[in-house]
């Protein structure tokens, strides 16, 4: 690995910018994601910053099961993100469909539509769990980069 690559990897791990996308959640997971970014939990100390557009984001934080109407949008947003990109499913229903399993307008969890790198269960996933999930994802990337 040359020096430039090393610097790029280092900066990538130190500033994982996230995009939050609600794919049909009940809102609880969304407010917990925001809560994780506010002073009590302060995800920003890991360099995590909430971005407004998919083109700036490294991590897509998805909450909620995938509804039929949002499905195409989700794929589009995923396609718009620059490589390397990671998807984190926040909440039980984005992991597997959760309580909404069997509803007629539900496709299932996020992984029914796009590949997912990390799953954070909980209904809703508490801010602590969200932090834990994001940090674990970063750690696993660090190990991979190190090799």
């Amino acid at each position, binding site marked *: 690995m040359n020096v430039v690559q090393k610097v790029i990897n280092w900066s990538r791990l130190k500033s994982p910018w996230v995009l939050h*996308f*609600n*794919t*049909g*959640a*009940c*809102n*609880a*997971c*969304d*407010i*917990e994601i*925001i*809560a994780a970014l*506010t*002073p*009590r939990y302060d995800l920003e100390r890991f360099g995590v910053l909430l971005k*407004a*557009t*998919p083109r700036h984001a490294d991590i897509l934080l998805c909450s*909620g*099961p995938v*509804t*039929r*109407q*949002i499905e*195409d*949008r989700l*794929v*589009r*947003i995923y*396609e718009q993100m620059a490589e390397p990109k990671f998807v984190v499913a926040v909440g039980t*229903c984005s992991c597997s469909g959760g*309580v*909404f399993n*069997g*509803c*007629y*307008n*539900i496709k299932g969890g996020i992984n029914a539509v796009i590949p997912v790198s990390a799953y954070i269960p909980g*209904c*809703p996933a*508490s801010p602590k769990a969200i932090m834990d999930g994001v940090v674990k994802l970063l750690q696993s990337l660090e190990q991979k980069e190190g090799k």
Partner: protein
Amino acid sequence: MHNPSEEFKIPIGPQHPALKEPESFSVALRGEKILGVDIRLGYNHRGIEKACEERTYIQDMYLIERVCGICSHSHSTCFIQAVEEIAGLAVPRRALYIRTLVAELERIHSHLLWLGVAGHEIGFDTLLMYTWRDREIVMDILAELTGNRVNYGINTIGGVRRDISSIQIQETLKAMDLLEERTKYYIELGLEETTIIKRLSGVGVLSYEDSLHFDAVGPTARASGVKRDVRKDDPYASYGEISFDVITDTGADVYARTIVRLKELMESYKIVRQCLKNLPDGPITVRAPRKIPAGEALSRYEAPRGEDVHYVKSNGTDKPERVKVRAPTLANVQAVKHMLKDRFLADMPIVIAAIDPCFSCTDRLVSLKDDDKKADVMTWQALHDYSIKWHSQRGVDFGKLNKKLQERLSK
């Protein structure tokens, strides 16, 4: 170049920095001025009403709670009140007091959350950080009392699932003192800070008459001077035994809505204190039958965003025959269109935020009849084709984009 005297349409959403939930607005503009707004819902529609019919009452309770994660207790209580009415259950007073207590704690968390979001929408992020920090105090109390931060699951048919200990009462009272002090600071901020006053007054005006005409509910209506509050008009739980004021304002703009919510916070602290002081002794549940006798009931509830209505029809089995939810945002969203007309585009985020919208509650499904095949319901594919045709008639070609997408997906 675009001619500023011409009408111009911009789409906002479903993924947009100003929106926290997937909904989509199509805004017709002339220059900076909004000519009209088309609201498109349905991105968040999960089909909960239908799913309720396939689950038992106990399962439904938890499902209904997840209609909306911010007013989860509102929905579950509203649903359960209807079920209890059909079953003819007399809920113990202690349980009713605990329900009221959690309801008010929920209002506190919801209003503080709103204040932060409103701050964020006008570019006052410090306020967001402040209020969300303070909101954690009430979240801790909710987690302590119910076991979960959101989606509390404290209700059960015939009462509540958890009792309150005297230590918890002390803790809650302490937290209320702290929050009251903070809220006083926010009220002072709201009344004196020129940037807030200038940014919010005169924006998103909804007159008293319009508010009645569009049937606005909750703080949106109360800020237009409509004294409408289910807690007073049709007391449920233990609100009949508690003294509090219905806050109204005559400003009719976003600023008035802010002030109404802030003052409602103070009322909520009052109610929480009364609940804790007068908490009656006794059991917290009565035994409920698994099968609910046939009947129907309509239940009303004042959620933080306004009146929530649930209708339940039972048929003597352990599953309901029909459940209908009318969430407050559905009542308020009509007024948004009116508030935005002839306003500036820059006002849009805060005007939408000012009704405290919750689209996960509101999302509906529109059933369309297929004219060609005379079928009752359109198939998914037919609906898809129809929408492509509809857009292409209006000059947007989704066919090509769609093909690209399909190719990518099949790879």
